[in-house]
């Protein structure tokens, strides 16, 4: 879902860069509370995993593919603020090192995938937290739904941005229909990857799943750390 440069006009690109910087700055401040000697290495590994899995485009239709965005995945594992930073680091490395995603479009890409996607995924996951604490099936279902919503809302970010300041003047209904149709399919892939990843971590190290912290869960025998 990485936009190239030129798809959005310059003023909107600047506005979205400001939004991205503000959002990432806010996440940087709030992330501290979720990072300690144990979760900091985990967060680095989550960012790395999101980068790796984003390389794997899976087919959704003849001639079209999709890849993980990772916002919900990261938010469930390391919290929304650290999660947004994970996705941001991935997007910056992709744009600078691999020419994947434009430079003037970086603000828009961070806004859609790292901020909107992560926030949406996390809010859904928190709303459904009591199901996630019930066991593997519940956690898998919550992860799937959160990730699906994350994908659709990140796609919606592009639709809204195109409506405000997109190049080419294509009818917005057409753009919306294609984006939502394709990303409903991609969201299923995102949901499956997220469900498998989160339940795998939870079955080995439930204490490292941010969403399960502080609640009585059916996972593992290790007592969950009480956060001071």
């Amino acid at each position: 879902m990485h936009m190239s440069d030129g798809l959005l006009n310059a003023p909107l690109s600047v506005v979205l860069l400001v939004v991205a910087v503000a959002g990432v700055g806010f996440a940087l401040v709030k992330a501290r509370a979720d990072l300690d000697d144990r979760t900091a290495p985990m967060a680095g590994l989550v960012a790395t995993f999101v980068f790796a899995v984003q390389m794997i485009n899976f087919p959704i239709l003849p001639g079209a593919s999709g890849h993980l965005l990772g916002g919900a995945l990261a938010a469930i594992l390391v919290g929304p603020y650290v999660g947004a930073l994970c996705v941001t680091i991935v997007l910056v490395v992709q744009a600078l090192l691999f020419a994947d995603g434009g430079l003037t479009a970086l603000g828009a890409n961070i806004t859609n995938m790292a901020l909107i996607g992560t926030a949406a995924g996390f809010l859904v996951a928190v709303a459904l937290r009591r199901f996630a604490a019930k066991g593997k099936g519940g956690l898998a279902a919550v992860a799937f739904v959160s990730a699906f919503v994350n994908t659709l809302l990140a796609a919606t970010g592009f639709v809204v941005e195109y409506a405000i300041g997109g190049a080419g003047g294509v009818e917005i209904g057409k753009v919306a229909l294609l984006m939502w149709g394709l990303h409903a399919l991609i969201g299923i892939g995102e949901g499956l990857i997220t469900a498998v990843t989160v339940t795998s971590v939870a079955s080995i190290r439930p204490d490292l799943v941010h969403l399960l912290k502080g609640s009585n869960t059916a996972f593992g025998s290790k007592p969950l750390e009480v956060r001071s």
Partner: protein
Amino acid sequence: MKKFFIGFAFVSLLIAGVLSYFASGDPDGLDKTVEDTGIAEHAQEHPFSGGMFADYALGGDDRFTGLAGVLGVVVVLGLSFGLFWVLRKKSDAR
């Protein structure tokens, strides 16, 4: 604890270094949308498209996608681990 972290890193390396060769080359949802609607005509060339690792290859040769993937894993791990380690609350116990 260490075992889990090493395993997690190894899985990422394997995905970026090996599984990446099996990734679909078709456009993703956003690229497909902008191609089918003609919006893509307005897309500009990436300023770094001539870069050594552009498009997850080595000098445009995608036989080295796995190598580019491993490099990306190392760079992302280094940057993110560094950032999160600096940001973390220091524990009083240690």
